Structures are given as structure tokens and as C-alpha cells.
């Protein structure tokens, strides 16, 4: 128990220190918790079965490598080098010799066992508190063998939840726009991958320009903007079946789509005669509602998680700023009052913060503020970056960043990056091609 509180303290303390500073882009290190991820043990028969099906020599080690990588990437854990492990995986899973693990300074230990049962993959794992010498958690799953990476993600989520007291975000996917070709003639495709960059798949062929895909909270559906037949419209795509359809019957460009928190509505902008306003369409009864009616540009709408409010950006003050209103469109209030322009507001899944892009003196920032606009905190500064999307637990933001080209206009690239809400653990998220417009799914399990 003491151990658990220690970890929570570790996570919270940098937040406290950070809140006092207005612009802080230092990458501090918060002494990640040393954890030993013992390779999951596997018997010879199961091993050879899985090798036949999955072409993986030792599935136990492969799954534990997924867990280890997730923990390291989170920035909160420091998985220890396996060469230092003294106890064999199978024995450790039965009863760890805590002195041995204590010796290598491990504070937590993950052990487990993989078996091939009735053509299925069965995985059990245990989480141990090394200092207290106690088992903290034991769980088992059975699934189809091809799901083995997901098992690694689910284990990480369980460990993360047990040790931090917060929901995990590892069994999730990212939908994004894959980019190729020259800056003046980019080919863009929808693509989807696991949160750790594996299992990348392209969802469109690149024949038409596609932008801003966003996940539904129910995970089967995605909404995005497509220039199919040179008519930029919001589309709905079922990623399981590949079926897609235009959202609504608008006589002009619709763009900037997002789902309502219950997944039943799409909120978006519709541009007509030089003016963009915010509309919703109910996906069941197809009823379209106009939410804003103002001669300024109103776009990038995002619902609060309880569905009662909408944040959006508008240039009604003369420049792009962030506003909050009731979901009916009433009671519009400007919330961004700092220096510079503010855009792409996204409500945190926890409900307490709004993430945004800020442009000030030629630099772009990703930041967060409270929903009344107070407590602005800039997390990262760069030449160009925008479009933050929250991890489902509201602890991490993913966004995209573009590089400045040289005097000949060469050297352009666009990549996905992520950063913790604390401002720490900023890192590139690897993709096969250049990438932009990331959107984080909710947890696949649940």
C-alpha cells in the first residue's frame, strides 16, 4: 500500500512544480519506477504450437517485450535489464525469491505463463510488490493466438491501473493521416495502428485528399473529411466493414467533424458563402441542427465528456480564439485571453481541461487550460505543431509536428509526437510514413 502511494506521489509532484511556470519546455526526469518484467514462461509444446501459427520463436518473451516497451514509453516505469534477472521465469511465476529481485533494485515484478489450450492462447500474469514481498494482482485471459500483442497491452493496462490508480491507455489504437510525396502535392491516406505503432493498416488508397479522422467513442466508426470527387464533405467510415457514407446533404463544404460523447451525433462545420458555422447531425434520425449562427468563422468543435457543453474556435473577436457554449449553442463565452491565436480546442476525457494549439510570435505551442480559460499551461513549443488528441485516460496528448523547410523548400516532414500532461516525456511516435492528424481511440477492452 505504501508502495502505491509512493508511486502516486512520484506522478503528482512534477505537476505541482509545473503549475507555477507559465512557459516551461524543460524535459525533466521523474525517476521512473524500476520494474522487472520477467519473460512469461512457456512450456515446450505450447512454444512449438505458437511458433507454427504465429512464426514467433518464444511467444512468452514476445508478450513480455510488448509490456516492457509500453511501460518504458509511458515514462513512469523503468524496466530493468533481463540479463540481471536471477530467477527463471517459470519458478518466479510460482513464488518469486524477493531478495533476488530486491538485489537488482526492482520495486515491482511482473511474471506469467503462456499456454496453448484448445487452439487458443491462454495467458496468466501476476504483479508482485517486491519490497512488501506480496502478490498485488493475478489475472488470466484466453483469446485467439493472433491477438497476442493485445494481451501484452491489456497486461500493461492492468499493471498501470494497479500501480497508478488511473485507467490505462495501452490497449488502444491511433487513427491518423499518412502522408507521402512532395509538400506541394501530398498524397494522403487514412491509416490506423496500435498505440505502440504496430499493426499499421491503410484504410484509403490515396486517390483523394483525406483529413482529420476522429474515432467514435464506440470504436467501430470513424468520421473524417474526404475530397472525393472534389467535394470536401464529412464522411462516416466503419473500420470493421470498410463501409462509408457522406454525413448529411449539405450544399457546400463540411469539415472539422467529431463525435458526441455517446457516439450518436456528429458535430462539424459547414461553410457557405464564405461563412463557417457549427452544425450537428443525429446519426439515427438524420436530423441536422444549426448550433452557431455568426458571420465569423466558427470551427473545430469538441463536446465536453458529459455532452452538455461544446468548445470551439472562432474569429468573432477579430482573431482565432477559443469559446465554450451550451450544447444548444446558447451562452457563448470566450475563454482564451492570453497573447496570440488559439485553435483546435479538445475537451479532456476527464472533463476538467481543454487542450489547444496556440500561435504566438511565430511559434506554435500545445497547451492546456481549465474549461473557464484559467490555468493556461504550455507543454511544448515548436516551429509548427497542432491538433492535440487525448489518450482515453486524459494523461497523454498526441499531436503532429511539421518541420521548417530549407531555403530551397526542401526537408519537409510531418510526424506524430506525444507528451504527458505534465509536460514531460515528449517523444516522437514512429510511423511508416510521414503522419498528421492523429486521433486516439478509447480503450478497446471494456
Amino acid at each position: 500500500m505504501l508502495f502505491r502511494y509512493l508511486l502516486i506521489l512520484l506522478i503528482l509532484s512534477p505537476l505541482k512544480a509545473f503549475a507555477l511556470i507559465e512557459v516551461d519546455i524543460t524535459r525533466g526526469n521523474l525517476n521512473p519506477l524500476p520494474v522487472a518484467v520477467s519473460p512469461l514462461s512457456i512450456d515446450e509444446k505450447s512454444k512449438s504450437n505458437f511458433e507454427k501459427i504465429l512464426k514467433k520463436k518464444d511467444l512468452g518473451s514476445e508478450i513480455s517485450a510488448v509490456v516492457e516497451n509500453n511501460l518504458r514509453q509511458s515514462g513512469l516505469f523503468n524496466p530493468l535489464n533481463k540479463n540481471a534477472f536471477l530467477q527463471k521465469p517459470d519458478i518466479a511465476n510460482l513464488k518469486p525469491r524477493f531478495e533476488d529481485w530486491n538485489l537488482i533494485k526492482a520495486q515491482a515484478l511482473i511474471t506469467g505463463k503462456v499456454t496453448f489450450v484448445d487452439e487458443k492462447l491462454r495467458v496468466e500474469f501476476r504483479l508482485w510488490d517486491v519490497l512488501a514481498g506480496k502478490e498485488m494482482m493475478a489475472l488470466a485471459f484466453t483469446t485467439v493466438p493472433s491477438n497476442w500483442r493485445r494481451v501484452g497491452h491489456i497486461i500493461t493496462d492492468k499493471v498501470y491501473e494497479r500501480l497508478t490508480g488511473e485507467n490505462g491507455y495501452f490497449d488502444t489504437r491511433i487513427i491518423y493521416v499518412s502522408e507521402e510525396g512532395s509538400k506541394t502535392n501530398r498524397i494522403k491516406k487514412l491509416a490506423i495502428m496500435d498505440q505502440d505503432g504496430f499493426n499499421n493498416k491503410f484504410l484509403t488508397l490515396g486517390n483523394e485528399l483525406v483529413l482529420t479522422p476522429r474515432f467514435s467513442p464506440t470504436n467501430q466508426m470513424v468520421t473524417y473529411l474526404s475530397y472525393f470527387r472534389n467535394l470536401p464533405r464529412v464522411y462516416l467510415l466503419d473500420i470493421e466493414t470498410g463501409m462509408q457514407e457522406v454525413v448529411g446533404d449539405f450544399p457546400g463544404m463540411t469539415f472539422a467533424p467529431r463525435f458526441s460523447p455517446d457516439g450518436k451525433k456528429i458535430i462539424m462545420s459547414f461553410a457557405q458563402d464564405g461563412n463557417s458555422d457549427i452544425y450537428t447531425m443525429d446519426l439515427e434520425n438524420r436530423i441536422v441542427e444549426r448550433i452557431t449562427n455568426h458571420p465569423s468563422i466558427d470551427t473545430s468543435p469538441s463536446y465536453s465528456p458529459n455532452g452538455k457543453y461544446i468548445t470551439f474556435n472562432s474569429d468573432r473577436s477579430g482573431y482565432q480564439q477559443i469559446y465554450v457554449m451550451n450544447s444548444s449553442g446558447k451562452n457563448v463565452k470566450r475563454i482564451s485571453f492570453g497573447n496570440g491565436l488559439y485553435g483546435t480546442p479538445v475537451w479532456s476525457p476527464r472533463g476538467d481541461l481543454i487542450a489547444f494549439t496556440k500561435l504566438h510570435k511565430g511559434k506554435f505551442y500545445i497547451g492546456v487550460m481549465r474549461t473557464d480559460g484559467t490555468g493556461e499551461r504550455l507543454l511544448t513549443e515548436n516551429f509548427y505543431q497542432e491538433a492535440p488528441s487525448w489518450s482515453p485516460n486524459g494523461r497523454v496528448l498526441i499531436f503532429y509536428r511539421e518541420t521548417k523547410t530549407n531555403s530551397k523548400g526542401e526537408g519537409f516532414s510531418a510526424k506524430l509526437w506525444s507528451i504527458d500532461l505534465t509536460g514531460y516525456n515528449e517523444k516522437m511516435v514512429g510511423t511508416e510514413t510521414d503522419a498528421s492528424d492523429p486521433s486516439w481511440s478509447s480503450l478497446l477492452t471494456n
Partner: protein
Amino acid sequence: MNLSKILKNVFLVIVASLVLTACATQKKIGQTQGDVYTGKDSVEYLASGVKDRVFFATNETVLTTASRETLRKQASWMRKNSKITIVLEGHADERGTREYNLALGERRANSAKDYLMTYGISSDRISVLSYGKERPVDSGSSPLAWSKNRRSVSVKAN
């Protein structure tokens, strides 16, 4: 007078007129005025003397004097060629968020459309398509490149 002397005189006249225009418009720096592009690098022609595009200041959708002149020529060309329809493609530079830029491109193209309509071109001959910042003509990351990319281009549709 031989040819080279003639050319030299012509050259001097050109230099003199350039100096004069430079004096007349103090804010003109290189190929921009304010931060509106005034050069010809990416400009194409719909017909002789009829430029295909107009340029905008950062975050602006207002037509400059030069833009209005270009659009009047486009309108007169369209009146003479009454079967022609056009698409106005509105664009923004890379220094803004993607979604806002889509709206800005749409607004820029409509600002050109409105002007063409006041010069007698029917709205059913003009459609509008915003590309936001998706189709820059200049891949540079400089104020000059950005000024070329903030544009509305009239493209023949038939």
C-alpha cells in the same frame, strides 16, 4: 543609335520607373506589399493579360486594389466567353491550424466570387473549393513563400 544603345535607354527607363513605383509605395519590400504577394512567380494566365490568381494578407480575406483589378479583367474575360465556368480555389499558408485554414480558404474564394458577381458574372458560373493549406504552390517556410500560398485561383472548369 545602335541596338545596344536603344536597349540601354529602355533599360534606364525601366529602372527609373521601378524606382518611382518604389517611392510611391513605401511598404513594398521585394515581391510583397504589406505581406500581400505582388510578384509573378506562380501566376498563370487565363487569357492574354488575365491573371488567374489574387493574393491575400495573413489571416485576411480582403481584396487589395491589385486583386480587384485582376478580378475585373477575369470578369470581362468571362463576359466575352459566356460558356466558360470557373472554380475558385481558395488557399491558406501553412502557419495556421488545418481546420481554420479550410474555412479561411473558403472565405477567400468567396470574397473573389462576390467581386466577380458584382461585375455581372452569374453565381452559377462560379463554384468555390477550399483547399486550406493542403496545396501550397511554394514549399518554402519563408514569409515570401507563405505570401504566394495565400491565394484564390480561378481555374477553368470546362
